[in-house]
């Protein structure tokens, strides 16, 4: 057991640190305002162009084919430089790698990883949240294309996306998990209407809903076999639940560090705030240690499975503990109308235990698939 960098890792870290010393875009605090999200695409391409994004993805799709532990180096260094986290794309990439044909992978992965084409994820619907397999959006084959009708909601990055990884029902007679298929749907077309959803903290750039009215998808854009959509969705969600793929450890570490600085500049710090700060640091550090352990497990060719539910709960607990420290340490800025970013971090953190599968669903997964508790 050795957490130290091997020679190649140390070299990579040094080069990244040098690059960040002149390229770390400080920007606003993560997820607190529209300005932050407005620069997300630019940050993605500059990271990628310099060789710091997609480092563990296969080289044939534009990644660097490095071991997963390099991702932890990227996260650590981004956090220490005060830079924004890396784009949260790993889960879609892994879903495609596992379930899409070679043709689909070659067609879509390089531009997705390079950030020249942006993606959103069309899974959830108004009537299909936790019960995702109840989704009603249909895709009906007409000649060389599928015609799609339905309503997707809670769709991150829908405002800027060129493509949507869409989960739709292609067989309404099949049992509900078995009638689903995944597609790459072009977003720029008449049948797709995108509407922003304003988040609890006032951000309107990140989140949206999609109205699909006779939207068209070429049949060649079908990602999975007909009926194979559920399996892909599970892979995507297992990765979407993994802080190792999301790069969120960098986000939390950065918020904690800047909050510590913010609080140090205040005339007094209450005992409760001090306690909350300690707790935020403890949890963000333990999450970092946890990600290192998980990435090392992948060295044994371990494909993330239900333990993603554990990781997600560790991650979202951390997000809310960090959010709580931000509330205690920074709420006066909102009262005085000088700086609402700390309040916004707190408010945004409340979504963590819902998006990507609620905490309650994660606990069901842990109980049934990991603890294997009897279900009746």
């Amino acid at each position, binding site marked *: *057991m*050795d*957490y*130290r*960098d*091997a020679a190649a*890792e140390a070299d990579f870290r040094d080069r990244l640190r040098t690059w960040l010393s002149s390229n770390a875009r400080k920007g606003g605090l993560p997820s607190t305002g529209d300005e932050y999200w407005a620069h997300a695409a630019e940050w993605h391409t500059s990271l990628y162009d310099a060789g710091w994004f997609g480092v563990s993805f296969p080289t044939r799709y534009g990644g660097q084919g490095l071991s997963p*532990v390099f991702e*932890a180096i990227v996260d650590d260094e981004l956090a220490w430089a005060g830079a924004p986290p890396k784009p949260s794309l790993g889960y879609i990439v892994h879903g495609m790698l596992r379930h899409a044909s070679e043709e689909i992978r070659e067609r879509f992965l390089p531009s997705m990883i390079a950030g020249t084409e942006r993606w959103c994820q069309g899974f959830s619907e108004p009537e299909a949240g936790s019960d995702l397999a109840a989704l009603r959006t249909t895709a009906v084959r007409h000649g060389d294309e599928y015609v799609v009708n339905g309503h997707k909601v809670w769709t991150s990055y829908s405002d800027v996306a060129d493509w949507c990884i869409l989960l739709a029902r292609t067989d309404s007679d099949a049992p509900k998990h078995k009638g689903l298929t995944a597609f790459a749907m072009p977003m720029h077309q008449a049948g797709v209407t995108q509407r922003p959803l304003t988040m609890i903290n006032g951000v309107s750039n990140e989140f949206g809903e999609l109205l699909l009215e006779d939207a068209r998808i070429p049949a060649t854009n079908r990602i999975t076999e007909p009926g194979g959509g559920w399996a892909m969705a599970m892979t995507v969600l297992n990765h979407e639940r993994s802080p190792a793929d999301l790069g969120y450890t960098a986000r939390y570490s950065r918020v904690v*560090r800047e909050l*510590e*600085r913010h*609080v*140090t500049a205040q005339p007094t*710090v209450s005992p409760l705030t*001090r*306690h909350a*700060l*300690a*707790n935020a*640091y*403890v*949890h963000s*550090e*333990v*999450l970092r*240690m*946890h990600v*290192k*352990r998980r*990435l*090392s*497990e992948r*060295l*044994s060719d371990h494909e993330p499975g239900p*333990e993603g539910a*554990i990781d997600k*709960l*560790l991650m979202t*607990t951390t997000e809310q503990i960090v959010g709580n420290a931000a509330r205690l340490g920074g709420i006066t800025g909102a009262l005085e109308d000088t700086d609402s970013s700390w309040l916004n971090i707190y408010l945004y953190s409340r979504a963590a235990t819902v998006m990507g599968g609620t905490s*309650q669903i*994660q*606990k*069901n997964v*842990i*109980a*049934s698939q*990991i*603890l294997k*508790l*009897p*279900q*009746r």
Partner: protein
Amino acid sequence: MDARLTAEQRDLRDTAARMARKSAPLTVAGLGDQTRINQLADDLTDSGLLELRDLGSGPTSVEVALVTEQLALAAAEASYLGPTLAVDLCRRAGVVAPAQCTIALTADLARIATQQDLPGSVAIDAGTAKCAIYLTSAGENFGLACVPVNAGVGTLDLTRPMARPSSQDSNELEGASLTADDLSAWRAFAHAVLSADLLGSARASHLAAVEYACGRTQYGRAVATFQAVQHLLAESLVLLEGAQSAVNYVAWAVDAEPADAAIDTALVSKLYCLTAARTINEIAIQVHGGIGNTWECMIHVHLRRALLAGQILGDEATLIEELVDRRLKAA
């Protein structure tokens, strides 16, 4: 980076697990069985596991943590933590540790005892200890001395008795010299080992709770089928996995990282593990229902071990204040 255990480390863990299980108390009534206690003490001595931190040993903090966790998992009635901390302190001071010795702490367990503290001090984990070491002053630095102990104080931890250091017959350990930095590094090592101890106690209770929930029937079904109970056990597993990741990292860090980073990591890990262990034990009591609140249920044995580990070398409040001070000073 490769954070996986090596094959040798896995072997060592399994050996310690077998040894601990063989002599573990299975019931509360079975605590204090001198035959088993002696057997485990002999096994530990024969295996050399007590010498992992001897003078001249290499970086073995991961190995010590693995053994500690396995002993805690079995609620082993063996002196391991105290003697290992004593041996490690002597190593740092450049001297060979006296045979069968543990450490003397202040009455609140917050720090290692000095000469002045000695009258009210306690020797922890003193089941098989004959003496305890404490700090003496040696110019700008510290020295070490050793004093015989008299068994039998404290009722917090039922598996690891404490003892009172004697008021006479102290022996200076000749040549021992420790700087304040040495002591800080030793304390970080101790918190790493204590984190592993907490992890073991937590795992024991979690496993017991899962087993109990699957066997206990109410309303004609195992209580483990109820979502309310399932969610408690799931929360417990999440904390356990977080604690495992913390212990893996800190166990490596205290021997491998620069002192300042190691101290930070040790505080983080100890704080996470003590809260996790207490919560997991409390969940286990809840899942055991009425039985969980009785003396005969083993959970309180694990909880008591965890409560003691949480007090040694700084309780929760002390460590939180220390961590915040360090962080805000650095910010």
